[in-house]
């Protein structure tokens, strides 16, 4: 067990709490930076997708995990980012202009979606965002002069200084950079008064507003920030896939995105990365397992069943998600003989009403 005795205020401001953290995160970063050297082409593609999904995970984690606002419409933000990027890239706008543009436009859309959030709570908000997602998908399918409708549209590869970022090397670094910057932005935002306000809103809106937190302002900021990150991820996704069409941004994708947060562990930034990795890796593992399946069974069915069962089991047995599991293992080692089974147990109750909030 490590005890940190703070002797200066600077210690409070440091990004890493102690040297061990700096070492391990540095090692992780070094491994990721050198990935093109040791990873094969297949693995690189997976890493790119994990980076992209992690960015969405960060955005959703800020909104759902830290501000407590549920969104079932993040695929719509992904769509806005992807279509903006596709249209700008087709006009030859450099990526360092088009990415921020996609982020800004998506943030603006996020503010609009956030407006009902000021009045809605819990499940009503989830339904409102769900409705938003369906409407955006329909607009993408019908606005044929811009989005090419259901036929979809190709996306030009990223161009940087007149050179195409072909293959996974260059594009991988772009995604990695975006993911690391998004992570740093989240970490720093959470340490700022804004982030504290988010957490206060999550824990209790009544007490947050009586402590002087402007609910409308901070909920809107949270929606805008989350949408902006998702927009960036959408832009990168469009480049990676190379072809976008409305059904890539359906409600099922929104649900998949929210499972990133739930599986990873609500309320932990680490959880966003772990959840993203899980959501990306699971279909790959299943596609290998598919070969053992008896004849005549639909492989898509197997994937849905396994995914559903994992979701249910994780929520029942590991409510804190993958990161929660890691926390428990770490605590077990840190406290070695003194770990108790009930340390992380949530207080059970027959029903905690959330109707009156």
């Amino acid at each position, binding site marked *: 067990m490590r005890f940190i005795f703070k002797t200066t205020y600077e210690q409070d401001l440091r990004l890493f709490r102690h040297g061990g953290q700096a070492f391990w995160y540095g090692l992780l970063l070094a491994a990721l930076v050198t990935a093109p050297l040791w990873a094969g082409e297949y693995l690189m593609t997976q890493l790119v997708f994990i980076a992209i999904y992690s960015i969405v995970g960060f955005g959703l984690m800020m909104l*759902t995990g830290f501000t407590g606002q*549920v969104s079932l419409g993040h695929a719509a933000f992904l769509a806005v980012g992807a279509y903006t990027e596709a249209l700008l890239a087709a006009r030859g706008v450099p990526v360092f202009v088009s990415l921020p543009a996609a982020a800004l436009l998506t943030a603006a859309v996020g503010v609009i979606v956030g407006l*009902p959030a000021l*009045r*809605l709570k*819990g*499940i*009503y908000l*989830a*339904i*409102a965002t*769900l*409705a*938003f997602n*369906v*409407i955006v998908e*329909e607009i993408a*399918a*019908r606005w044929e002069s811009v989005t090419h409708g259901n036929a979809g549209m190709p996306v030009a590869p990223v161009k940087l200084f007149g050179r195409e970022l072909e293959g996974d090397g260059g594009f991988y670094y772009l995604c990695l950079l975006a993911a690391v910057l998004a992570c740093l932005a989240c970490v720093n935002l959470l340490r700022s008064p804004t982030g504290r306000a988010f957490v206060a809103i999550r824990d209790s809106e*009544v*007490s947050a507003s*009586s402590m002087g937190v402007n609910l409308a302002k901070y909920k809107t900021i949270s929606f805008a920030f989350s949408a902006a990150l998702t927009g960036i991820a959408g832009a990168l996704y469009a480049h990676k896939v190379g072809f976008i069409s409305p059904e890539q941004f359906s*409600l099922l994708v929104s*649900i998949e995105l*929210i*499972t990133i947060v*739930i599986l990873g562990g*609500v309320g932990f930034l680490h959880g966003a990365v772990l959840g993203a990795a899980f959501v990306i890796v699971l279909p790959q593992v299943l596609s290998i397992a598919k070969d053992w399946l008896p004849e*005549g*069974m*639909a492989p*898509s*069915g*197997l*994937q*849905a*069943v*396994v*995914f*559903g*069962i*994992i*979701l*249910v089991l994780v*929520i*029942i047995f590991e*409510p804190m998600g993958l990161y929660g599991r890691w926390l428990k293992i770490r605590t077990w080692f840190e406290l070695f003989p003194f770990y108790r089974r009930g340390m992380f147990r*949530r*207080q*059970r*109750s*027959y*029903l*905690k*009403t*959330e*109707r*009156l*909030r």
Partner: protein
Amino acid sequence: MTDLAQLLVAGISSGCVYALVALGFVLIYKATETVNFAQGDLMMLGAFFALTASVMLGWPYWATIVFAVTVMAVVGMAIERLVIRPVLGQPAFTVVMITIGIGYVMRGVVTMVPGWGTETYQIPTPFAEAVLPVGGVVLPVQQLAVIAMTAALCAALYLFFRFTRIGVAMQATSQNQLAAYYMGIPVRRVNMMIWGLSAGVAAFAGILLAPVTFVHSNMGFIGLKAFPAAVVGGFGSVPGAIVGGLIIGVVEALAGYYLPEGFKDVAAYVVVLVVLMIRPSGIFGETMRKKV
């Protein structure tokens, strides 16, 4: 005028299906404060059981309904006992995610069961193609039958909640669980029965929907349209669910006829956004405030 009348009947009959699915949402929500995202998939599973009874076993239509509703009631109770009860007391959205997981499992299992699979099936009904001319308006008997059966089910449910011991116990449980415990009501068992009831209603809706959309593993997505219905009516209100379902059905039918293509699919969601803007808790929803 005849167009309008026909549209209204068509809208009300599809609204009835939305209303029944929404009713399932509301029953479960009122009792356990869980929004059951698997409601549409329960409906789908119910339709598949009906398909098995009617096509593969050759049972008559009414026996099919009884069979599917009974089987689904058992499935609903099993889901509550095995999956929902262990997570009671966790944040609402966590429980919502678990129902999404259940939906995935059901959708997947249906495609893997031999004889069900990913194909589209049809359940024969006694009133297939018949029409009923009423003063120049030609009304399909199918749609009228859906409306009549929904009305009958609603009446039966009303009597059940009003006059039977268990119905009153269910009402008490949904109003105040703690007080219900104090009155000696076995709240957990009642919750289980509410899940069973809700799944049974879902199966009924599935059978009514089967002639319209046919039976296939993705028919449960209609549940996503029943959400707006439940929200428009106010999520905690049983009459609200019925009214909301009818509103959504009628608006959708009218939008499909009078507005350009594409509006039909989003009409339900536009309505729900408008209602949420004006009345965040729906038409019949009760507004409650927390006392600090």
